[in-house]
């Protein structure tokens, strides 16, 4: 039975097309998108548009941007940033390789800094750069080199001071992808975590780009190590998710529990020798589906294949 499962896994793994970084194109019409600016805490703001949430830190040194949404939204995003600061964009951090997080890497700082000479450093883990610069797979489009980060890191952490506070960029190995970063603004006490955490929707475990369910759980546990509630599991460190509302530790706990419990359930079904199709029929996510956007075979399949691949 186990051999049969393995053969099935290998036979179909190539056909697995979970959402990949560059198969996701920008929505057809972004003209009607309005940018919402929400003050999170300290010198950190969250900008919501059409792609992933954008984190902005402002101060005397300039502007730091975490994730850049879509290129087409750059004028609106710059207008929103200008309401917070007239200073140039100095740093950009990409939390992952996804198109809705890096699409504005070129246009956003170019527009924002048009009147001045400012070298923008775009930080990402080296795996993001490797994914973007490698030959495209299948029908994936080529990623224009103007979008590539120019300041990659390969150690577990990169930190620096900006606007008077420590900024800590940490690599979360093999989580949503293999190039995920989280960004901690120490004085503001805000953590920007990208698509590792997306309240109200199941996580995207991008196996093709090196993601795994265990890596995702490890990353969520790491987030919980960093966050400290103010009082009685509320407030304190605020968490900006890849998509969705501002959260704190208690919200991440709910999410971590959900992913952990579903992993355990799928692992149990795997031990019983169930095929992927049988697992889908068993629907071990059924009590979480109403809370996380409905049944999601893509997520379930990613968990199944991620756990299968470990054997």
């Amino acid at each position, binding site marked *: 039975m186990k051999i049969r499962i393995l053969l099935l896994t290998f036979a179909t793994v190539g056909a697995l097309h979970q959402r990949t970084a560059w198969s996701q194109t920008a929505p057809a019409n972004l003209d009607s998108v309005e940018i919402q600016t*929400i003050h999170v805490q300290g010198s950190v703001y969250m900008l919501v548009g059409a792609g992933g949430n954008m984190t902005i830190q402002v101060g005397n040194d300039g502007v730091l941007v975490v994730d850049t949404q879509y290129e087409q939204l750059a004028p609106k995003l710059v207008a929103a940033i200008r309401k917070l600061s007239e200073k140039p964009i100095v740093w950009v951090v990409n939390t992952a390789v996804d198109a809705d997080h890096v699409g504005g890497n070129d246009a956003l700082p170019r527009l924002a800094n048009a009147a001045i000479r400012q070298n923008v450093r775009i930080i990402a883990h080296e795996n993001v750069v490797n994914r973007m610069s490698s030959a495209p797979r299948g029908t994936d489009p080529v990623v224009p080199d103007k979008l590539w980060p120019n300041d990659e890191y390969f150690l577990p952490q990169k930190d620096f001071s900006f606007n008077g506070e420590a900024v800590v960029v940490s690599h979360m190995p093999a989580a949503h992808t293999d190039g995920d970063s989280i960004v901690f603004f120490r004085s503001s006490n805000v953590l920007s975590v990208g698509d590792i955490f997306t309240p109200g929707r199941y996580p995207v475990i991008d196996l093709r780009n090196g993601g795994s369910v265990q890596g995702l759980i490890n990353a969520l546990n790491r987030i919980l190590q960093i966050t400290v509630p103010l*009082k009685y599991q509320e407030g304190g460190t605020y968490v900006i998710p890849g998509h969705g509302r*501002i959260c704190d530790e208690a919200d991440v706990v709910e999410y971590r529990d959900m992913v952990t419990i579903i992993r355990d359930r799928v692992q149990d079904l795997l031990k019983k020798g169930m095929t992927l199709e049988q697992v889908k029929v068993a629907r071990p996510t059924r009590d979480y589906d109403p809370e996380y956007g409905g049944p999601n075979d893509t997520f379930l399949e990613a968990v199944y294949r991620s756990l299968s691949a470990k054997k």
Partner: protein
Amino acid sequence: MNSINRGRIFIILAVLAFATAAPSFAQIDFSGEWAPLYHEDAPERGPGPELGDYLEMPINDAARLRADSWDADRISVVQEYQCRPHAADYALRGLGNIRIWREIDTATQRLIAFHMHFLAWDSERTIWMDGRPHPGDYAPHTWQGFSTGVWEGNMLTVTTTHLKANYLRRNGLPRSDKAILTEHWTRHADWLTIVSVIEDPVFLTEPLVRSDNWYLDPGQAIGVFGCEPAPEVPAPEGTVPHWLPGANPNLREFAGWYGLPFEATRGGAETLYPEYRSRLRDYKAPEKCERYCACTTLIGPGCNVPPPRPVTR
């Protein structure tokens, strides 16, 4: 005093009477120290509900499985659970000693808000009365949520959104962060009644309605609650205790202890209504009550203490 002066005085008095009477008619003052009455659902609110007791809860299948999977060890193992307070909807039912006070705009003497302080977890809640809007979709959610109130006659109706995910009952029955809580507050002399209605599109098939009562206790002194998380059971980091679907051995205890049909204990909207009895044709009530019989308080006669629960894991 001539007739013109008498007329002026009458007009001034009339204006004053109108100005002072209008708010007092519409606005009841709930300020004071309030002690809870546990004559409703005492076993659930004090020691806590039995595992698998979903009676009369209008839950859907997702809520039922979530509760079936819940393992109380989670509170011991996952430190982040240990100092979680009751959310606004459950705080009314728990250790419900409360203090209520008004915030008044000194310039206009208008009511800005009612503030509440709960004994449990020192929780504080604000009910805004100044007509401000609720926050947007991307605002953080909190245990007490965001509450606004309006007067309906002398009843205060409170709407609460932006709640964190929490529980309907302390046996794992979940309540989502999409729920909306509506409360109806009424005061009769020294008695306060709050009827709460929870609408949860994630876990409930119809609104869950509950009521809770307090009496005015001016001598009440609410102390500091205090809570410090600490590991009670060693476990590898990231451990989340839970039961796999179909594996929880404790779910039939409740039906057995109380002589109830198991299917009734599984809850669902149909178990709320008297007509449900007609579906339990084969059910025979036990001859003798042996647990929480005629229980209106947790102290004193009339409420037998249950035996220690055997370890079944």
